[in-house]
């Protein structure tokens, strides 16, 4: 039977014990087990789950990486963002660079990508890090003879 004072206990808690190392009596002790789940798909909203009161608590949180990841129209050789404000010409290929803005987070791979508009008129080619170790480069190629819905 589960101890009613202890919800989702992982171990016994200590109550009223003498801490020899500090010459003090610990009357109440709470152990907060904190789990933070990282969602790596860039569209996650942080949420915290609060469990009911107990002495030994399992806490859960979430974290996203959206603030680390940016994308830009990049140069055709994949060497960096194309800062020139040139418009993309009809039927021209588009190189998209996806990169991390911080040394704290690196991008290992691109798992999936969704094109929101005219998806059937384009084909995506993942060049990954062939062109640059810093950027993940996706080449978007317009398909000839295709018309938007």
């Amino acid at each position: 039977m589960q101890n009613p004072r202890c919800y989702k206990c992982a171990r016994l808690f200590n109550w009223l014990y003498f801490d020899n190392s500090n010459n003090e009596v610990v009357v109440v002790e709470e152990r907060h087990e904190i789990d933070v789940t990282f969602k790596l798909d860039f569209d996650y909203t942080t949420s915290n789950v609060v469990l009911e009161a107990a002495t030994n608590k399992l806490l859960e949180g979430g974290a996203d990486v959206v603030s680390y990841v940016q994308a830009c129209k990049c140069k055709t050789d994949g060497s960096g963002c194309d800062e020139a404000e040139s418009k993309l010409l009809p039927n021209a290929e588009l190189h998209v660079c996806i990169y991390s803005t911080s040394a704290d987070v690196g991008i290992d791979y691109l798992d999936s990508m969704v094109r929101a508009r005219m998806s059937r008129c384009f084909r995506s080619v993942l060049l990954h890090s062939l062109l640059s170790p810093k950027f993940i480069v996706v080449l978007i190629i317009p398909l000839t003879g295709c018309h938007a819905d």
Partner: protein
Amino acid sequence: MQLILILFTINVIQGPWAIGFEKLDTNFDKNSDKELTLILKVSRNRTHKVLDLRMGDCKTPIPNPISGDFFATSEDRNSFDNDATNDELVVKIDMDKSMIADSPMYNAESKVLQVCQIVQLVVF
């Protein structure tokens, strides 16, 4: 027995001994400086201690060499007029985010970072 009597006497004079969990906030944004914020209620007039962060089992210290650099803990204790029996204890944990991925606290497969924060009320 004597110890228990002393504590019982203190208890009667000063009120209850309690720690209550209020909230856990997480912020691992690029520019965050406090990644974990734990908000608790602790009985007023009781001395609290916030121990160093531990591994998820709540026993194992965070191993060297990362223990000294991986986290820094700070705390604020606030009293509010609308609560005569409890103070608010805010435990703030600043983590070096660049060390998370390679740390033993992070499970790359499940993408979960697991740590343990122990808070005590003590008598010296």
